[in-house]
């Protein structure tokens, strides 16, 4: 079981890093959303700092929505997914491996890029550590929950807008606690509570979401 996890993880990461351009696109999208936002305001320091938690997390949600559409699609199109379904290995483990690879390839990059962007928005430097930690705990949950929605809409060629309707309501807790941790640390308050809750959501996601993704894949390929 662990064997198949590592094998799928390795394969997906290899595929992802052979297409480095796509990874850079995610990063550029994230940077552009955050960088264009101040142009729409009067770019006063206090306003930007105040909205920065919402801005960073909305940019992450939108980037996740765009990248999630590629989570199962290539495997669906070339038939690999059917082979996964036919194999005796548990589909939930394969799903977890695929989401892990997805997160390592396109989720982790937000964590790495976030310090630069929040400093650009004028957020004090002491807050950067907590912000990175909140993204580190929150973005995998986005991949796990989003994986369910992607798996359900797999048979639809252009599911982007529908996918947002399916998964954004489910993202509310992550948005609240992720942005909550950022707001708390910017305001000089303890952010541990929000971080713990993000961790709890991640734990729930890791335990429950792979099974839901597996069930959704089975429905979509029926």
């Amino acid at each position, binding site marked *: 079981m662990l064997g198949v996890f590592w094998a799928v993880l390795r394969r997906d990461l290899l595929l992802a890093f052979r297409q480095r351009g796509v990874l850079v696109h995610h990063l550029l999208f994230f940077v552009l959303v955050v960088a264009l936002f101040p142009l729409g305001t009067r770019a006063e320091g206090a306003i930007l700092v105040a909205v920065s938690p919402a801005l960073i997390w909305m940019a992450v949600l939108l980037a996740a929505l765009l990248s999630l559409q590629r989570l199962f699609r290539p495997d669906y199109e070339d038939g690999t997914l059917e082979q996964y379904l036919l194999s005796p290995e548990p589909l939930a483990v394969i799903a977890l491996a695929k989401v892990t690879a997805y997160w390592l390839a396109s989720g982790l990059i937000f964590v790495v890029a976030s310090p630069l962007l929040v400093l650009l928005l004028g957020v004090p430097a002491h807050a950067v550590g907590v912000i990175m930690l909140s993204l580190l705990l929150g973005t995998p949950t986005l991949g796990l929950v989003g994986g369910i929605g992607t798996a359900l809409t797999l048979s639809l060629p252009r599911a982007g807008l529908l996918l947002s309707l399916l998964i954004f309501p489910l993202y509310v807790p992550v948005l609240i606690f992720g942005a909550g941790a950022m707001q708390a640390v910017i305001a000089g308050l303890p952010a541990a509570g929000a971080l713990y*809750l993000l961790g709890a959501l991640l734990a729930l996601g890791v335990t429950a979401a792979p099974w839901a993704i597996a069930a959704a894949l089975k429905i979509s390929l029926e």
Partner: protein
Amino acid sequence: MAKSAFMRWFHRFGSLPYFYGVSVPIARALAVPGVLLAAWGVYAGLVLAPADYQQGDAFRIIYIHVPSAWLSMFGYTSMAVAGVVALVWRLKLAEIYIVAAAPIGASFTFLALATGSIWGKPMWGTWWVWDARLTSELILLFLYLGVIALHNAIESPRTAARACALLSVVGVINVPIIHYSVEWWNTLHQGPTITRFDRPAMDLDMLWPLLSAALGFTLIFGWLTLWGMRVQLLWRERRSRWVGRMLENSR
């Protein structure tokens, strides 16, 4: 033995032609008391019940608002229960229930939000506040719309219904998490503090119409859902022999 009798009933009820036949008397049994109870409840609430000593006549909107809010939650929970049944036992009726109940539940959710904001304007002085309960209700509406949109998007009715079943189960796990996270967010924000009036224990003259309206609207919900199920069923089984035979007989 009792179990086997139950299972026999379960399978017979799961048979689609049988269900289609008995759905008419069941729908009638729901519709008649439902409409009567709802009509009496709304009439008694709007006309007979005394005005509230603080809110005056404005409070009377609860005779629509509370049943709608109750049904918005009841509807989604029942869809999730049907979702589990559909996924575990592959019962077609449960799949059809989800598809039929979603638009009706969404309508009641919208009604609850609309009446709430109409009430909020004179009472709170604003159409909308980002209060925990309001926000969770709004997200519940989006969850309903997601189920409806997913069903519309997937062409094969079987796949669409099963996908909706899974989505409503996933959604119902999230509803309490969303509710508590929104509550936590609201307390963190300390927005403009709007204190709900400490509701005095309700007078019986006000309470009975409310209960009657709630029960009546619930029966109406069941009635409408049942009719929606009949339509879904006919459409899905339109190529089967029993539907053809039945339509020929009724001609």
